[in-house]
Structure formats: C-alpha cells, structure tokens
C-alpha cells in the first residue's frame, strides 16, 4: 500500500510505521521554554526581507546616536584642551586673594583691600614646603609708546613671579630683587602687547608712558598662547606699582596692599595642608573666627579652577548631547511606527504562532527582539558615523576629539533603551492578539 504521495518520494506502510517511530511523543510538559537563539534568528527575517524599510527605520537612531557620540567626543576633546591650557599656566599653584568668599554672583576677585605685604611676609615666615611665592598688585592703564598706545593691564609683581608662572623671556632681561626694592620704573611686556606697541621691531630699551611715569622696557616674554591674558599684560616691580602707579598704601599708612599672593607647592599632595596653614595664620592676624565664617580672604588652587572650568564644559556637552538625544527619541518613535505596521502585516502569522502553541510572552519576546535588533544595528551604525565625525574633526586639527568607552557604552545603552521602550508597545499589541481573530485576518 504505497500512496502517501505521487511524487516518487512515497513510503510504504512499513516504512511509514518506521517513520512514525522516529516521531516519538515529546515530553508533554513542554516546559523547556522558547529557544531564544531561534527567536533572535527569526527576528532578523523581517528586517532582512524589508531592507529598505529597515534602513529608513534605523535612520533616526543612526542620526541620534551619531550626533550624541560625536558631541561627546568633541566635549571630551574640549575638556582635554582646557585642562592642558590651564596646566600651561603653571602647576601646583596656590592663590591667596583678599575679599570674602561669595557664594554665587560675579565676585570682586582681588578687589577687596584686606591683604597686605605684612601678611605675605608672615606667610613666608611659616617656611611652607613651597618652591617660592610672589606678590601681585596691579591695575589698568593707558600705555603710550611713540608709535601706538594701548589700554592694558599692568601687573606689579615680585621678581619670582616669572619663574612661578613659567613665563620665559624672548629678549632682554627680567627685573631683579634690587630693582624691585628700589621701585625702578622698568617693565617686561607680554608678547602681544609688545607687538601692539612697538610693531615687530625690538622693544627692549625703548620707553612707554603709563600713569604719567616714563617706564623703560627691559624685556619681552615668549608668547604663552592659550586663553591666559599674560601675553597682553605689562609687568612692573610690585613696589613701583604700589607706590608710583596705583597708590596702594593701607588706610593706616603702615603697609601696602596686595591683590594676590601666589605660592607654588613642591608637591601636589601638600596643597591642602598649605592652604589650611595659611588660612589659620591669616585668621589669627586678621582677628577672624577660627571656623572660617568671617574670612576676608580666599585661598584657591589650580585644581579647583580646573574643576570649575571642566564642570562648565561637561555641562555644555551634556546639554548639547541631550538635544541630540531628542533625535534618538524621534528615531524610537519611527521604530515604534514600523513595528506597529509590522504587527498589523503579520497578524495572521501571529495567529498561527499562537495556534501552534506560542504563548503571549513568546510573541512579545519575538517582537521586542526584532525592535532591539533594528535599534542596536542603528546604534552601531550611528556609533561608526559619530566616530567618523570625531576623526574628521581631529584630523582637521580643530580639536582632538576622542570617542571614549563611556560614550560607546552610552550609545549602545541608549539604543537598547530606545528599542525596548518603543518596541514594547507594538510587541504587547502582538502578544495580546486573539488567535482566532488573528487567524481570520486577511
């Protein structure tokens, strides 16, 4: 009795019995759970069959992830740039300035008049572990040269200022302790200022007038670059600035005011201890409360500068990335839209799968996985796009933008979240379909 078919692939009754033995009853609990690997494999079928649609769906995620990644890379590059520029000012520097610390608002940094030369001498007497200290008192003045004039900052500084701040001479010489004690009318110019006043010719040996004083230029500094203002400043002995230019005598007439004391710690690890000892000393000298609540001075260091600046940069970066993240959300909505279309198109398939035993959660998993595949693929493409942008910016030399491991994790995490969030609604719709209606759907 051969008959099951007429294709020549038929089997006799005996053969069929043997075949049936090869289909033994399966374990009827069926509790093995769905084979996830197969679900992932099947979830690729639909996007692969609709490649154009899948790519268009991914576009939102590609653009979103791409812009988040490239913005974060640019932000990281900017942060690195700022750090290196701040560090180019000098390292391990501690600044003591007069005036109460204010919370918020534009501070009158250095404008108060509560720090004196005597305070500075007392700090020196502490014999702190520092490479040296320098004092500063300055103001702004009109600088008049024979060919040009310019309104500029004039900083009265100790001779040690140049070494502490890693300022180097391009030509001429710096003023020394003797010239400082004698309050000699000499100046060392920043590179830009020298150029502004004297053009590209030599400035050393010429004179400028400031505040009715004739001052001889004895040196010009090497340009420091960055965003520091030293290149546009004129440096004079602090005694000259205090006595002849800006009148810095204290109200009681016994001392001179100081706007800034700079100390360079030998070790970064000592910075906090040094700051604490200076604070105790000044509170004692100024008869202030020991808890610091009445302080009329502030002590800051470079690390705190840096952290403020970097906070601003990170905030800006996060802000921009958040805006870019909006397109991720839009991309997610695109995925949801297409998944809803897909669920409708495949209603009959869902009905069939349920009829052969798929539970609601099996269907849910299948559609969520499909949304995840689309969003993760989009995320990966977006990551490549963002990295390319970062690379292009780095190569063009604007910034060294680097794609960090964090931003890779963020991009992939984001696209996973988008896929999950926007995939679940269509998947739930699919999972909740009534198999009878779904099977009948045309």
């Amino acid at each position, binding site marked *: 009795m051969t008959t*099951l*078919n007429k294709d020549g692939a038929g089997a006799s009754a005996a053969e*069929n019995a043997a*075949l049936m033995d090869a*289909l033994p009853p399966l374990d009827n609990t069926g509790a093995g759970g769905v*084979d996830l690997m197969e679900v992932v494999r099947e979830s690729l079928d639909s996007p692969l069959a609709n490649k154009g649609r899948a790519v268009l769906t991914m576009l939102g995620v590609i653009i979103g992830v791409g812009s988040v990644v490239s913005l974060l890379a640019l932000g990281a590059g900017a942060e690195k740039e700022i750090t290196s520029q701040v560090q180019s000012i000098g390292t391990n520097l501690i600044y003591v300035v007069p005036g109460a610390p204010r919370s918020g608002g534009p501070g009158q940094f250095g404008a108060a008049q509560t720090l004196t030369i005597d305070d500075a001498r007392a700090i020196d007497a502490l014999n702190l572990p520092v490479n040296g200290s320098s004092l500063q008192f300055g103001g702004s003045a009109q600088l008049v040269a024979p060919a040009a004039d310019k309104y500029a900052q004039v900083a009265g500084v100790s001779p040690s200022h140049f070494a502490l701040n890693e300022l180097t001479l391009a030509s001429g010489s710096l003023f020394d302790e003797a010239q400082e004690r004698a309050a000699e009318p000499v100046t060392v110019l920043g590179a830009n200022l020298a150029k502004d006043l004297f053009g590209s010719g030599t400035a050393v040996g010429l004179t400028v007038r400031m505040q009715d004083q004739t001052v001889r230029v004895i040196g010009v500094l090497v340009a420091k670059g960055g965003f520091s203002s030293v290149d546009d400043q004129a440096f004079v002995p602090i005694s000259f600035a205090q006595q002849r230019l800006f009148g810095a005598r204290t109200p009681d007439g016994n001392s001179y005011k100081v706007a800034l004391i700079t100390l360079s710690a030998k070790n970064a690890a000592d910075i906090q201890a040094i700051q604490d000892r200076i604070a105790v000393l000044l509170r004692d000298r100024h008869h202030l409360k020991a808890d610091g609540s009445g302080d009329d001075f502030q002590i800051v260091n470079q690390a705190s500068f840096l952290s403020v600046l970097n906070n601003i940069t990170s905030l800006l970066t996060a802000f921009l990335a958040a805006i870019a993240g909006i397109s991720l959300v839009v991309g997610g909505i695109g995925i949801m839209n297409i998944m809803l279309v897909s669920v409708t198109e495949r209603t009959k398939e869902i009905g069939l799968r*349920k*009829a*052969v035993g798929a539970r609601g959660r099996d269907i849910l998993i299948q559609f969520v996985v499909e949304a995840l595949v689309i969003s993760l693929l989009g995320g990966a493409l977006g990551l490549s796009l963002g990295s390319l942008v970062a690379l292009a910016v780095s190569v063009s030399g604007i910034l060294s933008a680097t794609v960090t491991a964090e931003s890779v994790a963020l991009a992939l995490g984001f696209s996973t979240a988008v896929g999950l969030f926007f995939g679940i609604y269509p998947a739930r719709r699919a999972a909740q379909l009534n*198999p009878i209606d779904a099977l009948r759907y045309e």
Partner: protein
Amino acid sequence: MAARDGGQGLVIASMISVVDLCKIYHMGDVEVPAVCGLSFEVARGEFVAIIGHSGSGKSTLMNMLGCLDTPTEGTYSLDGVPTQNLSDDDLALIRSTKIGFVFQQYNLLPRQTALRNVEMPLVYRGVPRGERRQRAETALRLVGMGNRFNHRPKELSGGQQQRVAIARALVGSPAVILADEPTGALDTKTSEEIMGILQSLNRQQGLTVIVVTHEPDVAAYANRMLTLRDGKLVGDGPPPRRPIAAERAPERVQ
C-alpha cells in the same frame, strides 16, 4: 501509541470528551448562542468529520476543540485533561503539546523553508535544534515531501503546501489533528490526495483526526460524521459512503 491499530472504531480510551458544551456570544445586550448543549466523545484513533453549513456553529466548535477559545458552559476534556477555566498560557501549552492544526489557507510562513515551517511549533516547546530538524525531516517524509525540505511556500503547489502544513501539525506528536476545511482551497484531485494523507495517517499511525468541513465528499473520508445545524448536534453516525483513497479505482465506484 496504544491506539496505533485501533482505527476502526475500537475504543481504547476517550480522546475527546465534550459534555453540555455551550458558547454564547454577547452582542451588546443580546445573547447569541453559537453552539449549545453539545455532548459527544471521540475515541483514540477515530477519524471524525464535523459537518455543517456556514452558521451551523462548526467553526465555534472547532475553536473550542482546538483550545483557541473557551466554552461559556459545559466541560471539554482532551486526552484526559479538562480544559475549562485554564489560563491563556495553559491553553497555549495544550495547543503546543496535544493539538496539530491544519488550516484551509495552509498558513505557512512565506519567507521560511518547508523545513523551518515544520520546525516552528517545536521552537516554542524548547526542543533543541538538532532534534527539531530531525523530527521535521521525518514529518516531511511522512507526508511525501522528503525531497522538498528547502523549498519556500511560493515554490510549492497548493497541495504541497498543505502537505507541509500537515507535517507541521504532525511534528510534535499531537493527541489529535484538527483540520479546518483542509481541502477548501484545493481542486478535487489534490483534495483527494490530502484527504488520502489524513486517512492514511489515521489508519496506519492510529492518529486521531478531526476534520471540519461543509462538503459531504470530504466528510465521507471519515469513519464517523457529526452533523451540526443551528448550533445543535443533529446527527452522529458513519458517513453515507466512505471512499478509501488508497484503494480507489480511477472511476468512482461505490
């Protein structure tokens, strides 16, 4: 399979037991009974046709027998398991382990090969890949599709697609095969082939087969016919004539 050779009405155990089954739909405030007061038993290894005109309630009965729907009243036990008051997940489990569906429109997944279509129900039972493949190949050979493993539905004729669908119904060793108008989309000759396969599976393998149809010609392949009219069981007996596809002469002989 205790009932492998029990095809001809030898009752070994009751496969299906239906008592006072009712399904009442609510259309607004109106109660519409689709089927009501149905009671019957199907023995292991029987080949039963459920016949009725459209609107007779045979689809509703089919859905309940297939655990796609639950009765509003009465009880239904399949292979000794009462199915009323089961959760959706439990019903899915019963469909997965005890029922093999064959549909009028085959309902194959268009982008997948015959083999993967047949494997599909086993995916939801967590059957490992190798065993899945092996069982699917066996099932396809059983319906004479041993040389079409990697064809997609598009590349197969209607009859061949329906064979793949039967293989898919077979692959999990179900307690019962439920065929809903299995020849509805096929020409007469192919219909005979498909009914021949079902008949052969019933006679040779002792599979319990239930076919729902509105065509007496199709019902005639069964060894028992339940007739539904207006939601009530109005007939239960052998079909008027019973052609044995395998033994039929080219011309129709009674």
